[in-house]
């Protein structure tokens, strides 16, 4: 059982997301993260899904995804060298005094930026792989994380290889 990052190129049509996610829930997969957005081809969108499962089960889901008429291409990025990123916004309790300074120090170490400041809180924006964001959130917990919002993972292959249409 390991995380798989699937990059799915789909027709940008109503209902396509529920077709995709339905296939996962029917097979008992829990989707760890999900990101959807338009892509380089007009009329298409790219869905990036992270699921944890054994290789055979993930392969079966990919085959089932390929059967959906509105799905153009499915790839498991996990098999290749890739760049993966997610973005998180973290609202931390930060009263005047030492804690505020410490939080700002931690932000610097993680190359997170402070995107909102109020007398009682700070909002940090951080970009990175899942582990990095988990680590930052864990460190900030001692100060009081009031709200934690993160995007799904997105990924792209390293080098000139691409995930494109024509399945």
């Amino acid at each position, binding site marked *: 059982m390991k995380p798989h990052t699937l990059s799915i190129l*789909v*027709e940008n049509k*109503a*209902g396509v997301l*529920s*077709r995709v996610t*339905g296939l996962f829930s*029917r097979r008992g997969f829990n989707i760890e993260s999900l990101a959807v957005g338009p892509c380089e081809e007009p009329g298409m969108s790219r869905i990036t899904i992270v699921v944890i499962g054994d290789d*055979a089960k993930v*392969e*079966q889901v990919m*085959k*089932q995804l*390929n*059967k*959906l*008429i*509105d*799905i*153009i291409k499915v790839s498991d990025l996990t098999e290749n060298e890739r760049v993966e990123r997610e973005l998180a916004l973290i609202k931390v309790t930060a009263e005047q005094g030492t804690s505020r300074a410490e939080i700002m120090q931690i932000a610097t170490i993680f190359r997170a930026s402070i995107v909102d400041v109020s007398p009682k809180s700070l909002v940090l924006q951080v970009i990175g792989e899942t582990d990095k964001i988990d680590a930052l959130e864990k460190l900030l917990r001692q100060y009081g994380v009031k709200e934690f919002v993160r995007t799904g993972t997105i990924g792209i292959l390293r080098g000139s290889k691409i995930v494109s*249409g*024509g*399945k």
Partner: protein
Amino acid sequence: MKTGAKILVESLLREGTEIIFGYPGGVVLPIYDELYDSPLRHLLVRHEQAAAHAADGYARASGRVGVCLATSGPGACNLVTGIATSYMDSTPVVAITGQVPTNLLGNDAFQESDITGITLPITKHNYLVKSAGDVSRVVQEAFYIAGTGRPGPVLIDIPKDVSTGLAAEVKLPDKVVLRGYNPTYKGHKRQIEKALELLGHAERPLIYAGGGIISSNASPELMEFATLASIPVTTTLMGIGCIPCHHPLNLGMLGMHGTEYANFAVTECDLMIAIGARFDDRVTGKIDTFAPHAKIIHIDIDPAEIGKNKRVDVPIVGDVKGVLKDLLTLMKKQDAHEIWNKKIRHWKQHHPLKCPTTDGLHPQFVIRTLSELVKDKAVIVSEVGQNQMWTAQHFCFHNPRTWITSGGLGTMGFGFPAAIGVHFARPDVPTFVIAGDGSIQMNIQEMGTVAANKIPVKIAILNNMYLGMVRQWQELFFDHRYSFTELPPVDFVKIGQAYGIEGMQVNTPEDVLPAFQASLDCDGPFVMDFRIEREENVFPMVPAGAAINEMIGGHPR
């Protein structure tokens, strides 16, 4: 400019639709108004579920796309069981449903249901049409998707204002191109060569033939392939008819209620060639002990079936008809596998299917009598349960598409309405339904349809006043505790009479043949109520989860 409803009916005609099975209602009124004076034939059923099954039966018997039509909400929901049945057995059906007007979508409007959402996991694809101008393209795509690749049902949901809305003529492409849908038809040459290498080394090869042979119309190629290399053939429930029952290489059905010799052959073969089959649990029993000594070649048009349940040595993705042709072209002279075939002949001789000879009316005798009477001049449709298994075992099928049954979903209530569709696909031969007293009562209202339209479907009910298959499991595995499986006696002949259908009750073996004769002599539908031995079982049987050579009710080995 034309209305969406008119475009719909014209599009169906352009796709070659001969008949649609349907039931009117509020939001499909514009479509029904178009049907009123259209050359497109419409058959009014008595329940929408029957429309879906009839379209499915038509598709299975003809190989063409079947079409059903229902209104929104309850009408659409009533199609669901039929659509799921088609999906599981990969049959080409286009289901058309009405929907509330687009401005009310999602409003919990009267008779609204999210039918595209509901049917998402049981359709090959579905559409919610948003404008009249999209209707012709969507119908063209739906027929293309339903009938190509691995066939399956496609649903088109049409809001009322789309039916009444106006649109100009749309120029349609000659060929549908969908960038997300490109089925693989041609088998990979290297894989085909590898398969032939395996076959060249095999001493005990076996073909495991499924419904894919039927839907691909590949029986002639299968027969040629099997005969050239002297490979015995066992068929799944869905594959029955792809090789004539009397053919020396035919082993009959395998699996839970398969023949002993087919299951022995599976267990002892050293090469299994699975063609258009999907290693279903009712076929394999305990998967680890299925074909334990065999290398496996799997030919299927759907790549998702390869390796789904069983590890495969040589996968070949493609249309089985084309792949079999390619195999035949490349095949060199083959061994006759004499020792293996001799062993199989021995098994066939010493482990035949049993037909009880004790007093009383036995269902196996009923089926065999019909088989000998009609030979290859009938299409047989079954319901689901004991009636289905007895027919699969004891009727001698000669041709593909003459055996129509719900395999994957196992839908009780499928048979009778499906037979209505079968009749319109094959009006040249009689259509018989073999039913149980349980399953016939799941869609018995269709007696109204066959009576009103004089559809000559012959209904043979194997009446044991039980839900027989469930009772059999209770007898064998639940200590004879017949929990809610006994049905009070019903006089089916009288029910038929109420609808104006002729019939006959049969209580003795002597009356079986005259009853079938009378059914054939009757121009219209006919009901036969066979009062069979109440606790007759279907044997042999592989208990759920056991290895398939561990059968009960067979011969001592």
